[in-house]
């Protein structure tokens, strides 16, 4: 029984973690592509159109990976988490079906037009198809966040006679305050992935000494957007989200911070390893009173530690939760620093010559993926032991008829298949970056043949 639960959790965790590597770039790149299209229309500079086309190619490969790894997510609610689906389908079925009819149809319709239709439609219509693609991807994100937010902080529901839940307020569910905060924080996180990928590629081009003109465009747009979203990520979105979590999931906050015992004027732990057995942090590096201030706005406030709560509501994997949160927050702080320095150099017109900074920007490229993944791990591990906070435990939700052997079989299958997808993705994106945003040599080839 227990091993089946573990397998089903790993199954969902693995497939969703792999999946979300792609949508974060989709959602982060889409608005930046709209920016390029807008600048091309305003300035008439064809380089912006080439930049848009270059990123559209990477967007296309990335979007495909998001689609094919996304389909299994909806299925897994039923296949691996049947009891959860049965009980909560009347609530979370709503955002999931809305995602299908409002977001996916929009995205899929305009994706084809955006990627393959540039020659068929006017520049304005092509701008609109890029914009609607951006809208579709951001809407899709909202409905998924509404789903997760209901599991984190259930609102607008009532119990039915058969034990299931149904929605009792359509807008109440859609405008769950948790969802709005989480969405703001998450989308800003997706933008950070987008801007670091874009400016990382730009820095690479300048360091490599090729496509320099485009490298500068990517860096300029990436760094200016970057500083905005890196700041928004911490303040106000991260700050508000943290306060909300402390209010409604105080035991999660205590575990995230590694606060085993209540403290007045609580210190924040920057580094250190949680020792569950002795209920303390080893090798702690702390800043006094800061945790109380961050949560309550005053250094004198008491922050409740894990000792105040019964063990059966403690998150089930405290060290992993603690590390996920610290990795997320640590990287988020580093991002602000990197982008602030970069924008300062850009302002002083020194960025393109500062090779040390270009190296840093390029090497930062993978870090937002880690930060976003760690952020989601914080949210989901922090929700444990609950599947729906306070209402349904994770142990009650999985498919009892699917035994561990069958679950492991398909988990291994997904791991193998996703390894192939990862290799294909990296290979194709690497190739596109190598080709760069210049007009395609393939076209030159066909023109030559035609001549």
């Amino acid at each position: 029984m227990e091993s089946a639960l573990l397998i089903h959790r790993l199954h969902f965790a693995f497939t969703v973690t792999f999946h979300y590597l792609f949508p974060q770039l989709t959602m982060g790149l889409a608005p930046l592509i709209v920016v390029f299209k807008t600048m091309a229309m305003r300035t008439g500079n064809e380089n912006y159109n080439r930049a848009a086309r270059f990123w559209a190619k990477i967007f296309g490969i990335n979007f495909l990976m998001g689609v094919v790894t996304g389909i299994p997510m909806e299925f897994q609610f039923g296949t691996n988490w049947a009891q959860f689906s049965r009980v909560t389908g009347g609530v979370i079925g709503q955002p999931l079906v809305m995602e299908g009819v409002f977001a996916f149809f929009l995205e899929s319709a305009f994706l084809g037009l955006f990627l393959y239709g540039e020659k068929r439609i006017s520049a304005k219509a092509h701008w609109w198809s890029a914009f609607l693609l951006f809208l579709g991807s951001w809407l899709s994100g909202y409905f998924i966040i509404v789903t997760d937010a209901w599991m984190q902080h259930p609102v607008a529901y009532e119990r039915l006679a058969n034990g299931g839940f149904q929605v009792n307020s359509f807008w109440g569910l859609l405008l769950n305050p948790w969802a709005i905060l989480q969405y703001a924080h998450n989308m800003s996180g997706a933008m950070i992935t987008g801007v670091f990928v874009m400016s990382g590629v730009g820095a690479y081009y300048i360091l490599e000494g090729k496509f320099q003109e485009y490298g500068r465009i990517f860096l300029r747009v990436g760094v200016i957007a970057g500083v905005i979203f890196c700041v928004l990520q911490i303040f106000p979105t991260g700050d508000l989200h943290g306060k909300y979590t402390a209010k409604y999931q105080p035991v999660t906050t205590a575990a995230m911070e590694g606060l085993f015992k209540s403290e007045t004027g609580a210190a924040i732990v920057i580094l250190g390893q949680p020792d569950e057995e002795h209920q303390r942090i080893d090798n702690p590096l702390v800043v006094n009173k800061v945790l109380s201030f961050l949560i309550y706005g005053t250094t004198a406030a008491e922050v409740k530690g894990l000792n105040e709560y019964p063990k059966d509501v403690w998150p089930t994997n405290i060290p992993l939760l603690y590390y996920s949160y610290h990795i997320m927050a640590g990287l988020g702080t580093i991002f602000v620093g990197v982008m602030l320095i970069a924008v300062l150099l850009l302002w002083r017109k020194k960025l393109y010559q500062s090779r040390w900074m270009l190296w840093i920007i390029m090497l930062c490229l993978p870090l937002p993926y880690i930060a976003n993944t760690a952020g989601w791990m914080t949210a989901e591990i922090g929700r444990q032991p609950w599947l729906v906070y306070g209402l349904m435990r994770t142990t009650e939700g999985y498919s009892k008829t699917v035994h561990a052997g069958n679950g492991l079989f398909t988990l291994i299958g997904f791991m193998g298949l996703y390894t192939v997808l990862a290799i294909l993705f990296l290979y194709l994106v690497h190739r596109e970056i190598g080709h760069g945003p210049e007009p395609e040599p393939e076209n030159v080839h066909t023109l030559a043949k035609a001549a």
Partner: protein
Amino acid sequence: MLLVWFWLVAIMITGYVLLDGFDLGAGVLHLLIAKTDQERRTVLRTIGPVWDGNEVWLIAGGGTLYFAFPWLYASAFSGFYLPLMIVLWLLILRGIGIELRGHIDSPVWRGFFDGCFAIPSILLTIFFGAALGNVIRGVPLQKDGYFFLSLWTNWRVGPEPGILDWYTVIAGVVALIALTIHGAHYIALKTSGDLSLRARRIAGLLWPALLLVTLLSLWATLSIHPNLLDNYKSHVFLFAIPVGVAASLLAMFLFQRRSKDKAAFLSSSIYLIFMLVGAAAAVYPNLLVSTTDPSLNITVYNAATGPHSLSVGLVFWGFGMALAIGYFVFVYRMFRGKVSDGESAH
């Protein structure tokens, strides 16, 4: 209200079969009728801008089912665990086959992704047909409303059947042939020259087979579940459905002979609609029947979510689907007409 949601789910499934059906059929035929690299690119271009949108009907249909009948969704998806996971893997392979083939100009690369597109397409049509066969045949539902099916047991239709038995294999073959014809009609319509002629010829050759398996599936269904005619007997107008199936088959035959590609494509669309609507009309109000005890059947009455969710759902669902149909009309108009050779492959 329950009747309405039953039909909305049925419409979503029918929409999916109709739309993704032709690009699945194109996949079945891909290796068979497109010989050169140019022809294979042409086949892919006929479906390139639309296949992803077509597949969204599956997602939206699944979502609709989840929202309206969570008990069915939970029971069926966990019970059909293994075949659904295989379907997911096939959908992944097929998606990358369609989209990644054109990226690199190399015979090995393209050959690999041709296979990724074609073989999963063949298997998917069979699996989808078999899935429908399983729903009609029934599954060994337990008292808690759950079941679990192995991929196969003894290939018999008994109280402990497998996903695959002689009946569901027939259903799989019906789907394979019907969607292949549907795809052939689509390719004939969207291409010109040899490719179009070959597609037409295949559709013509398969027509007698479709007639045969349609009759066979009707006989097989009534032999395992004679009571499936009860709804038809109490609502005599429903007999228009089998008449519609017969008429669409006849129309398909006539239009194929006269090389009217568009009319032939419409006929195969109507055939698919009547077959699915006919099945839905027969099973209502059951959603999943029990092979062990009829009192354990999952019906619209015991599987639905609460009335408030359903009535609010009708508003946003209707609004959203109206928008979606608008996008579809727009995109299909944008990419209407035959695919020409001149454009660069995507």
